[in-house]
């Protein structure tokens, strides 16, 4: 139990002043600007937006600067800030089919309609340190000659759907639940699970997904399609009575094609997992799709084999890094009174058992 303590204001002030000095580092080196973080550490910015659950690259960059690059601390700052914002409403569902893709690949079809577009990727790099970057070298620029119009890329799952080979996503028109408004209740439906996964800790979701690949609830995923790009955000404006486009956000979407189910009445069909994350976040979005698929065991009539990735309570209650870090880090705050009672108790128990204290032994 935590019992409040008082005092230490001066020490705390000094500690915070020193923190800010540490953030600045060696003054002989130029200070980093929020704009530099936004433009040059984009993947860190994306992670803070995704897990902070607020799309705003400027704020995420500021949070990264303020937190000395501790991304969970930055996510914490964003989560705290978002609670101060009035909610103006909700957008229309973003249409990822119309995404202006900078990257789009399929691991299932070599000749995917629309083609394999690698985009800016770490794939196929050699993971060798590039010392020219340390020497402030200028980067190469892609020269694009033909000005092609952005073409709409068909969804790979639609392609499979034509033959009825994959389970369909149905629009029932149900209003989705919102974790930021109502505390999570179990059992959760897929809408809440997806909201929880997309803002969950990347490392945790990755670990859960990896566990399914290693055999703890195997579901044989293929990356049917992974796409990264801009989607237009459209919103119904109450004052106007119609919807307008209010901006564009970058998202990463992963659709997995998984092992099939079938029964006496239904022919075998592939099943699917889904990942959708703010920003360019491939690892997170693939992980999310695998975990989404694992958590769908009941709806797909699979056995619960008792593995962690199938356990909704385990996954959803431990994926939020702000909840986790809050509870974990509070144990470093003063627990003097609490510990005092433990001390009293252990002394009393030892006394009752007539164990001599060390002082008595020595004398």
């Amino acid at each position: 139990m935590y019992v409040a303590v008082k005092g230490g204001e001066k020490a705390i002030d000094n500690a915070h002043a020193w923190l800010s000095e540490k953030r600045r580092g060696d003054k002989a080196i130029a200070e980093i600007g929020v704009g530099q973080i936004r433009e040059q550490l984009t993947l860190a910015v994306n992670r803070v937006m995704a897990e902070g659950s607020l799309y705003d690259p400027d704020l995420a960059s500021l949070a990264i600067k303020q937190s000395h690059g501790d991304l969970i601390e930055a996510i914490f700052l964003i989560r705290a800030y978002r609670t101060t914002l009035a909610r103006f409403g909700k957008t229309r569902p973003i249409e990822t089919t119309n995404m202006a893709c900078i990257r789009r690949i399929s691991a299932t079809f070599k000749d995917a309609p629309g083609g394999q577009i690698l985009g800016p990727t770490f794939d196929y790099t050699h993971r060798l340190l590039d010392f020219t970057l340390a020497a402030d070298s200028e980067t190469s620029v892609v020269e694009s000659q033909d000005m092609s119009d952005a073409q709409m890329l068909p969804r790979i799952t639609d392609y499979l759907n034509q033959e009825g080979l994959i389970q369909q996503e149905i629009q029932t028109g149900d209003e989705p639940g919102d974790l930021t408004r109502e505390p999570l209740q179990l059992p959760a439906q897929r809408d809440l699970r997806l909201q929880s996964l997309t803002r969950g800790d990347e490392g945790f979701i990755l670990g859960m997904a990896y566990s399914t690949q290693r055999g703890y609830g195997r579901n044989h995923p293929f990356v049917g399609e992974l796409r990264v790009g801009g989607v237009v955000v459209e919103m119904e404006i109450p004052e106007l009575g119609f919807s307008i486009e209010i901006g564009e956000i970058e998202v990463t979407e992963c659709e997995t094609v998984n092992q099939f189910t079938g029964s006496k009445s239904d022919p075998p069909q592939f099943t699917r997992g889904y990942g959708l994350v703010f920003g360019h976040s491939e690892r997170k979005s693939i992980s999310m799709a695998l975990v989404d698929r694992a958590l769908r065991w009941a709806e797909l009539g699979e056995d619960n084999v008792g593995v962690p990735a199938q356990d909704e309570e385990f996954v959803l209650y431990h994926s939020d890094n702000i909840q986790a870090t809050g509870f974990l880090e509070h144990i470093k705050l003063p627990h003097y009174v609490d510990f005092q009672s433990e001390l009293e108790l252990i002394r009393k128990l030892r006394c009752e058992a007539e164990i001599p204290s060390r002082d008595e032994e020595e004398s």
Partner: protein
Amino acid sequence: MSIADRQNWLSILAKAPTQELQDRVASMDSLPPYKVLRAAEIGAVMVQGRMGGTGDVFNLGEMTVSRCSVELQTGEIGHGYVQGRNRDKVRLVAILDALLQTHRRDHLMKTIISPLQAQMAKAKSQRAAKAATTKVDFFTLARGED
């Protein structure tokens, strides 16, 4: 003025780069006097996605949004909603929305909306062209292990 017209210019204005918009407005003759109905304010909206891209809706996360409403002396009311925290931009959008409902519409479409639209289309096709340079053809090799 049809709903589609207004939808179109509000969408273009919202997505336009701030600097670009400000430059174009600066080159206009003066803005008319207006009354602020709702001062520019910052808030958030919940962005929704679809399961599997095409199925039921779920909440993806929020994004910051600014909004503002103004009224011209001639009675036209303009509204602005734009992504991000940008009071200056959203105020301009609201004023232009009101002005676009007046006799100045044709002129403004020609000097502000159409050029912005053309410029954004160009940026979009440049991005697509860049993506096209990374298009690959994988071919599977026969494995020599039979």
